[in-house]
């Protein structure tokens, strides 16, 4: 883990007491090549990059045997995930294995309830998060936009929550703006949109709502030019954050001229 920023730095993302300069977290899967992945990471300058664990000797692990060296080379904080876990015990054990392999207490908790939508198992997510929190993990739970679920995750000790915008890998953008904005109104912990973003404008939108960061993978990895797209997302996240902090105008129904009316030529009073 790189050294955290001083907490007095302007507008840093603070998670579990650690400060990060970027509000973009980037996934590492599905890129056309390791070199493109590396270049995308450099272009995005993310706060963290996500990684996973798979059986040694499997096709995945063999194909990605150079990934460990890339992680060491990049020296970006790693956020391991429990992708593919369907039970609390699977997630807990995977998290413990990830902690040892990656030497980090950070964990993106994924507990999958449905293999088609990859929706989190909301009924078991809270107890699993609580177990990991008590075991010393810094848990970033992948969850839905359900207010009660998110509040319960906070109640058991999660210092940030990560609601989805849309199902993983769909690129649809925020499907339930009402619920997502309600989360921002009601919760004070950092909110990180995780999953379902497809365009930089999606990222910008959620940041304008006041979300603290975004985590995305497919939107960059499957772009025709992932490196430029990584930059686009980085800029979009920054733009959305600045918009939120600067206080956008309130939308109104009736038109109001920007140019002063007084002195309009050819104007005749009726």
């Amino acid at each position, binding site marked *: 883990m790189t050294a955290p920023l001083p907490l007095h730095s302007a507008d840093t993302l603070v998670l579990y007491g650690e400060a990060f300069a970027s509000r973009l977290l980037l996934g590492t899967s599905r890129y056309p090549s390791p070199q493109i992945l590396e270049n995308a990471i450099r272009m995005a300058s993310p706060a963290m990059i996500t990684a996973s664990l798979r059986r040694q000797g499997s096709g995945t692990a063999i194909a990605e045997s150079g990934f460990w060296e890339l992680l060491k080379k990049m020296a970006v904080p790693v956020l391991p995930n429990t992708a593919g876990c369907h039970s609390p015990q699977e997630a807990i054990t995977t998290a413990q294995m*990830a902690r*040892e392999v990656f030497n980090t207490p950070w964990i993106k908790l994924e507990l999958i309830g449905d293999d088609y939508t990859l929706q989190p198992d909301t009924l078991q997510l809270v107890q699993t998060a609580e177990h990991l929190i008590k075991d010393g993990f810094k848990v970033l739970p992948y969850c839905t936009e359900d207010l009660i679920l998110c509040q319960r995750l906070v109640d058991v000790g999660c210092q940030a929550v990560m609601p989805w915008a849309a199902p993983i890998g769909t690129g649809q953008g925020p499907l339930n703006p009402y619920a997502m904005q309600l989360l921002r109104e009601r919760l004070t912990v950092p909110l990180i949109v995780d999953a379902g973003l497809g365009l930089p404008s999606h990222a910008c939108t959620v940041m304008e709502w006041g979300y603290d960061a975004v985590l995305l993978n497919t939107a960059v990895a499957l772009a025709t030019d992932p490196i430029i797209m990584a930059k686009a997302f980085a800029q979009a996240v920054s733009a959305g954050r600045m918009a939120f902090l600067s206080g956008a105008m309130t939308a109104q129904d009736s038109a109001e001229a920007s140019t002063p009316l007084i002195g309009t030529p050819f104007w005749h009073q009726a």
Partner: protein
Amino acid sequence: MRIVVNHIPHELPALSKVSDLLQLIAAKPPYAVAVNLQFIPRTQHAHHLLAENDQVEVIAPVTGG
């Protein structure tokens, strides 16, 4: 005794430990181990005794979202 490693059965002598298994499959660091869904820390690999039909996972870092 029969031990299943990453869903593949192997034969090991009785009283084999996790470290013996790792040597058998030529596991290369970095990796982590779980036996019957329980995490076995690295410090225990040379001590944890395996039993007939134990389900062992030896996992390595890969890309993830």
